[in-house]
């Protein structure tokens, strides 16, 4: 089989362009125009000087999730599992329980969203049949020093509704009873360089290693 004939590489440039110099000067002129404009009118910049100036998000901005309450003060959520099912990041963990005194029968004993995993797609809001979860807080500063504090739990997300906006870490420190498991105040719960779970010990401790 014959090799394909060597093709002359064509740059597609005209003679004038192939000298580069003229085109170069054109480019330099363009960039210089920007510089001069920007020096004399610094308000042209669209940059938001973030920690000092904060952008206010639109109504439709998807921020941190909050859980809504019914008029009687209980969470609207009935643990139907639509949101963990639709969640593409698999960041929602709900443990359902039965409330014998409530007509809704089912309620979330635990409702955790791992904000480290969340991709803020808003599918959970779309999927909810009870309008129990919304992302309309417009909170976009979600950060913490530990992985545990990045888990927003039921109590925290319910409290976000009151316009209360402490970082989860602060909230958990103030309400240690409502902090997620493993959240330990100031120190990282898992020392750096340690494996997350001691698999051998963990399996022995929790029976078959997969306790419910």
């Amino acid at each position, binding site marked *: 089989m014959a090799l394909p004939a060597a093709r002359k590489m064509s740059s597609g440039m005209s003679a004038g362009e192939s000298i580069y110099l003229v085109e170069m000067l054109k480019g330099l002129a363009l960039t210089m125009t920007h510089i001069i404009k920007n020096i004399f009118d*610094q*308000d042209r910049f669209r940059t938001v*000087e973030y920690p000092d100036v904060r952008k206010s998000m639109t109504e439709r901005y998807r921020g941190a999730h909050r859980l809504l309450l019914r008029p009687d003060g209980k969470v609207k959520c009935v643990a139907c599992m639509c949101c963990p099912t639709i969640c593409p990041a698999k960041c929602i963990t709900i443990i359902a329980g039965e409330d014998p005194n409530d007509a809704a029968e089912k309620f979330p004993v635990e409702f955790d969203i791992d904000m480290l995993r969340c991709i803020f797609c808003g599918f959970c809001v779309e999927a909810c049949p009870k309008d129990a979860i919304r992302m309309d807080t417009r909170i976009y500063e979600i950060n913490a020093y530990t992985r545990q504090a990045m888990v927003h739990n039921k109590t925290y997300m319910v409290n976000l509704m009151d316009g209360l906006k402490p970082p989860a870490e602060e909230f958990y420190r103030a309400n240690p009873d409502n902090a997620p498991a493993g959240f330990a105040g100031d120190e990282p719960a898992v020392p750096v360089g340690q494996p997350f779970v001691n698999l051998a010990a963990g399996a022995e401790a929790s029976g078959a290693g997969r306790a419910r």
Partner: protein
Amino acid sequence: MTFDDVLPYLVALGRCVFAVVFVMQILPLLIWAERKGAAYIQDRPGPNRAHVMGIRAAGLVHTLNDVVKLIMKEDIVPGHVEKRYWAAAPVIAMSVALCTFIVVPFGDNFMGYQLKVSDIDGGLLFVLAATGMGVYGVMLAGWASNNKFSLLGGLRASAQMVSYELSMGLSAVVVFLIAGSVSLSAIAEMQAGAIWNWTVFTPMGFIAFVLFWTAAFAETNRTPFDLPEGEAELVGGYHTEYSSLRFALFFMAEYANMIVASSVTATLFFGGYNLPFVTPAQLREHADWVLMAAALAAPTFVYFAYEANKRKQRPFYQALPAGDARLKEPMVFVGLWLGAAVAHVGIGIAGALGLASKLSLNFISFGYLESTAVFGPDLVTAIVGITVLAAKILFGCWFFIWVRWTVPRFRYDQLMDLGWKRMLPLALGNVMFAAIWVAFFPTGLISTLFGSK
């Protein structure tokens, strides 16, 4: 041992310190200019967060932060490198860059001493030789890193530098022909006086300048010829394995090379330390007038102060909470600019009083020191020379930055194509053209035709 015995050594030491300090002072400024220029070209504010007691100095403090950061960072020595050569590479790169500077004249003679580090006869040849050495730093870094990306970066750098050094040397030959000397001092002196004495304003000089300047981009590994560190394909190129101060040395060497390339170009093609239409002799003669002229800058500073005052109204300052250190920033700048204006007016008054032409050690010490040799005019000439050269260097460096943020990177085959197939023939032809031209107009076109110098 008398003072006169020690003096030559002191002078030599002073020259070296001056050359190093000169380059090292421009470096942070260039880094700042690179960032701010890039930002302004791209319609964003650029570095403006770091501050010292609320003074951000338009982002200059970031460079200070960088220095601290680079010093504090862990110096990682990867296990697979050839330690000795690997450690030597950044030192070579930086010291070669600084070495090149020793033959560049900063001004006309000061009290009989040349204003350059060493009066090497080779002059320009030394520059070419030293920049040729520069490739060793990059090559060693690439090879000693023992890493295929670094090696490729080093290979690219050496191939590219070798290719472009030819055109660069041939362009310099044109200047030799015109000046009849390889000494940079002589070349600078030759260009004193009228602006058309500058080499760049001769036909072959202009072509030589374009070729030399383009080759300088390749020699300094700057965009559009920064293929040795093409991060898209080579991670970091030859400095992939370097961190902390070793990386900083490479980083600074790049800027030092820019300064050197600009200073050599300024000297070869743009009259060096000479102001157009004013020879050093004229400067000496009218030193007082020069001082008085400095006062003309005062209104500019006042205008700057006015602008700085207006910045208080910007939304950024309006949004700051009361008590933020940055709130006093505009007033500090107003003070600085007004101070500069007052200083310049003062210099003007000094000129008007004719101080420059009386300046001697005897004069300064109110008669206590005996030396009555007047060095005022020489000092003014030297300062003007250094300032003019610095201005030309800064413009050259700015041009490097400007080009970097304007054009994209060449492809490697395009780079080689340009170097060998276009620039080299052009440079050769230009040398022949220059030889013929110089034979017909030995002292330059205008001088030859009109007989003026």
